[in-house]
Structures are given as structure tokens and as C-alpha cells.
């Protein structure tokens, strides 16, 4: 918070120094002089920019193979154009709707549950005065963030396993037979989403806790004087102060809507749950790298990216209209 206030000051102080050069009419010469003076900065920036070009922009241009009949010998640019053939092939395949439904379903569910969870945690932590309890709760809930996806899925497999899993022990106590939870298609989404909540809520809460710490204490004081209850304070002071941060995070989440979770979904898949666990990104991987249909796979990936981009831009637009906070 303080940092954000300090920033404009430095920029204001910085400005008068800047046009130290006589305001020459040819701005090109001015720019040239500036660039020459800081040639070393351009040298420094060269490698990172080269990285961006090679590993970000060349792959972007490689998207053209979605519109081509790619083969290794002729290369990306030599291969013949086929127009929208691969897009049509994908849209017409019977599995298209299933995969789209799975992708949207998992993400909607995840957003509905996973988005409010850290806010709830932050609000609860904010009610408690600083102390041992608060800091240990924060530290413990934050820890699962560091567990790798592979380990996370392994934990799911061992805890949900029908033979040694802890959940099976509970159900045994209740007299229910052992069940292989990972193999039940209808449970896939829930396992995915709730384990994400388990792993990331503590991490997600940090930003909200920081935002709550920045609330003007006078607001609380006057609320107290007016006789507001804790609940009323949360509703009237805490929640409104979280809106700007949550809007930004919501936009970022929606921007990743279509690609979320490839790593975890892929690891959680097994032949029993494949009907609900195959999403577009896992399909791209399987089609593209495991069966080497490069063009087809790129077309699906391109479709995915476009949906993402449209979501990001439109949500940002809506957020700007409604709440004045946006990414750009």
C-alpha cells in the first residue's frame, strides 16, 4: 500500500530532470542521443529479448501449422496449406463436445469453489488478533502450496486408495465397502477441485490478508462506536475493500480458464475416469506428441488460446465498466 503511494512521487521528481537536453525539434535525434547514452542497457536487454523472440514469438508464428498439412521434410513454411480442415475435423468429432464440456465443467466448478475459499480464510484470519494461533494457521495452510503436482496427485492416490487409504478407513468404520474413489467418473471433478482448495487456499489468502491490513483503522473505530457487530463490519468494511484485488484476480483466473490444470488432470487420469477427465489440453498433448498429429493438435491448441484471449479481453472490459478496476 505504502509503496503504491510512493511511486508517483518518484516519477514526479524524476520528470524535471529528464528533458535536460535542449528540446530539439528533431525528436529522432533526441531519441538517438538517449539511446547512445544508454547503449549498455540495450546490451543488457539483448539476451532476455532474444529469449522472448525464440521461445515465445517463434512458437506463436508456428501456429500457422494449424492451417497446414505439416510434415517434417518440408518444414513449417514449406508444407501445403489446408485451410480450416483440422478445425472442422475437431469440431465435427463426436468427442469435441465431451471434451469442451469437461474443460468448462472442471473450470466452472473450480472457480465457484476455489475463488471464494481464500477470501473466506483471509476474512476469518483477519478477525483474530496477531498471535501464535494466527501465524501458525497461516503457516500451516500455506505449506501445501510447495508440494509438487506429482506429489499432490500421489497423495490423492494413497489417501483415496481402496486398500490403504485413510478415507477408506473412515468408510469402513461406517460399514461401507471399500471404494476406488479415483476410478469413479462422477467424482473426478470434486476430487480435482477440492484438492486444489486444500493446496492453494492458504497461498491465495495472502494477497487478501495484505489488502485487509491496508484498510483504514478509523473505519473500524467508527463502526465500533456505531455499535456494528463483527459480522456487519465484515459485510460493510472488509468485503468492499477486497473488491479491487478480487476483480484483478478473477480476471487473471478467467484468462487461464481453458488451460488450467493440464499437469494435474493428466496425472489424475486413469482408464476408469477418462470419460470425465479428458479435457482439451490433455487431448492436445495426446494427439500431438503421443500420436504425432502436429497440425491437428496445434489447431486444437489454437482454438483453446483464442477462447482464452476472448474471455480475458471481455472480462477485463466488463470489470472496467462495472467496478473501475481492470488489468489494463
Amino acid at each position, binding site marked *: 500500500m505504502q509503496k503504491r503511494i510512493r511511486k508517483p512521487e518518484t516519477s514526479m521528481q524524476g520528470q524535471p530532470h529528464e528533458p535536460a537536453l535542449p528540446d530539439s525539434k528533431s525528436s529522432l535525434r533526441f531519441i538517438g542521443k538517449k539511446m547512445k547514452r544508454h547503449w549498455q542497457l540495450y546490451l543488457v536487454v539483448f539476451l532476455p529479448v532474444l529469449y522472448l523472440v525464440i521461445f515465445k514469438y517463434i512458437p506463436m508464428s508456428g501456429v500457422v501449422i494449424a492451417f497446414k498439412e505439416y510434415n517434417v521434410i518440408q518444414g513449417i513454411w514449406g508444407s501445403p496449406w489446408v485451410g480450416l480442415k483440422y478445425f472442422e475435423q475437431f469440431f465435427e468429432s463426436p468427442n469435441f463436445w465431451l471434451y469442451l464440456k469437461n474443460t468448462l465443467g472442471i473450470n466452472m466448478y473450480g472457480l465457484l469453489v476455489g475463488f471464494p475459499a481464500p477470501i473466506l480464510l483471509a476474512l476469518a484470519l483477519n478477525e483474530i488478533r496477531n498471535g501464535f494461533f494466527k501465524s501458525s494457521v497461516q503457516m500451516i495452510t500455506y505449506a501445501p502450496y510447495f508440494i*509438487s503436482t506429482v506429489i499432490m496427485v500421489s497423495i490423492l492416490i494413497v489417501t483415496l486408495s481402496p486398500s490403504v487409504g485413510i478415507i477408506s478407513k473412515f468408510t469402513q468404520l461406517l460399514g461401507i465397502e471399500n471404494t476406488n474413489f479415483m476410478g469413479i467418473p462422477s467424482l473426478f471433478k470434486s476430487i480435482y477441485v477440492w484438492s486444489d482448495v486444500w493446496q492453494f487456499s492458504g497461498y491465495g489468502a495472502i494477497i487478501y490478508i495484505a489488502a485487509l491490513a491496508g484498510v483504514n483503522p478509523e473505519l473500524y473505530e467508527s463502526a465500533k462506536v456505531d455499535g456494528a457487530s463483527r459480522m456487519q463490519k465484515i459485510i460493510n468494511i472488509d468485503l468492499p475493500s477486497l473488491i479491487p484485488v478480487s476483480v484483478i484476480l478473477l480476471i487473471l483466473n478467467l484468462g487461464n480458464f481453458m488451460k488450467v490444470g493440464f499437469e494435474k488432470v493428466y496425472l489424475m487420469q486413469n482408464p476408469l475416469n477418462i470419460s470425465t477427465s479428458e479435457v482439451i489440453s490433455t487431448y492436445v498433448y495426446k494427439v500431438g506428441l503421443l500420436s504425432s498429429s502436429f497440425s491437428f493438435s496445434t489447431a486444437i491448441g489454437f482454438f483453446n488460446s483464442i477462447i482464452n484471449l476472448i474471455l480475458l479481453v471481455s472480462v477485463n472490459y466488463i470489470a472496467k465498466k462495472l467496478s473501475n478496476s481492470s488489468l489494463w
Partner: protein
Amino acid sequence: MFKASRIRESYGDRLFLLGVYAFLSVVTIVVLFPLIFIISSSFSSPQAVVSGKVWLLPVDFTLEGYKAVFRNPQIVFGYLNSLYYTVIGTAVNVALTVMLAYPLARKTFYGRNFIMVLLVITMMFEGGLIPLYLVVKNLHILDTRWAMILPGAMAVFQVIVARTFFQTTIPEEIAEAAELDGCSDIRFITSMVIPLSKPILAVLTLMYAVGHWNAYFDALIFLKSPDLFPLQIVLRNILILNSIDPTMVTNVDQMLAQQGLKDLLKYSLIVVASAPVLIIYPFVQKHFVKGVMIGSLKG
């Protein structure tokens, strides 16, 4: 005096606070229990694990599982490979990030808006899996250690975090003063910016290092040789695909014993693989929180 200025909490508020404590306690137990259960299981005898006797504390304490883990050459090599990728990869990551973030923080750096736009575009649109794979292939670094380091040599988000930090902590005036004294830009970076930026360097190092230690997807796509596999791929093969067990099973007793050891091995392996990150976690937690908060400031 202190008491007088305080308004007593109402009955409802105290009840509400009690509810908050209860809620947070439940959350903490739910988060902690699986972790304790796994650690306890990893120290228990195979029989106790299979028959479900372990609830909270280890039963029949043994290090059998850990011995099995470290006897497996795949795991040991995976560990060493991961260490290599983490150290080299993080060094490259931090260097490139600072090299891009600092000039972008300088107002006198002409063209910074253009590079910023270049950066932000990559956050919104990407070529996708296959085009990236083809680039890596055309560079002839497929199935080499480079494939684990170069494609992810810099993260756009971290660049923006670092840039925000430089903008807010290193005033433009110092750079100008240094310039007047005849200090070159590169010298200024090495002898002023870097010593002043220890907090952000710590944050970047930690975030990138955790990323490298936990990464498995790059290896899945780009690596074929088992001797290059990082720990996470080895873990996946053992824990998720269950592809261990080269020995033939002769009788039922032996099979049961082996099944038990296999389950035990999983728990021990989970602990061994997460240990480095979780051990340093309490010491670096503060830096992490700081990093998340710098990142949340608008760049």
C-alpha cells in the same frame, strides 16, 4: 484508561469469534492431518501400513521405507538431476529476469514501453505445445539438459514483479547522479542495483527454485533418456504409474510382503521428495509473502 476507551464486545460478537476460531481450527486440522498421516506412515512397518493401523503416530517404527528409497538408483539419480536443474536453471532465470526488469524500470530507457507490450502479449497468447516443441527440436536441444533450462529461462510474471520492485526502491536520481559521476550503466547495475536488491533477488531465487524442483512437464515432453530424468518424473513412474517391481514373485507371502513394502515406499518417497522444500519453507516464508505482495502491486 485503556479499558475506558474500549467498547465491550457483545454476546453475539463473542460467539461469532468463537465460531471463527472453530472454523480456523477445523481448516488447520484438515490441512495438517494428511501431511502427518503420510509422515507417520513412512516411519511405520509395512504390515501396519497395509492393515490400516496407522492413524496419527507411527506404528512399529522402522526406516525400512527410507532404506528402500535410497537403495533405488533411479531415485538417487533423479535427485541429483533435479538438483542440477534447480541450481543452473535458477541462476539463468534470475540473471535473465534482472537483465530485463531493470532496464524496463528506467525511465531513460527508450523503447521500454515497446518491450513491455511484447512481454504482456506473451501472457495473453501463446503458440501452444506443438510449436514450442518444434522450436526446441529445431534448436537440437531435444533430450538434452538444455531442454530443461532454456525454454523456461524467464517468467514474464516475475519480470513484472522485479520491475515493480526496482521502480519503487531504486530512485531514478541515484542512477542520474551515478551517470554524472561517469558511472556506466553496467557498472551501476553490478555495484548499486544488485546490492540494493537483495530482497527481490531472494524472492526470485526461491520462486524459480521451487518451480524447478517441482517441474515435471518439461521433462515429460522434451526428455527421453532415463538418465536425464528429474526426480518428479521418477516419482511419477513409481508413484502414479506403479512401474516398479522388476523381481518375480514366487509365493503369496513374498508377494504380500512386497506389496506392503511398495505401499511403504510410496509414503517414504513422498516425504523424501518434498523434504528439501518443506525444510527450508519456515525460514523463507517471510520472503515468499513479500514476493506475493510485491507481485500483487500493479506494475
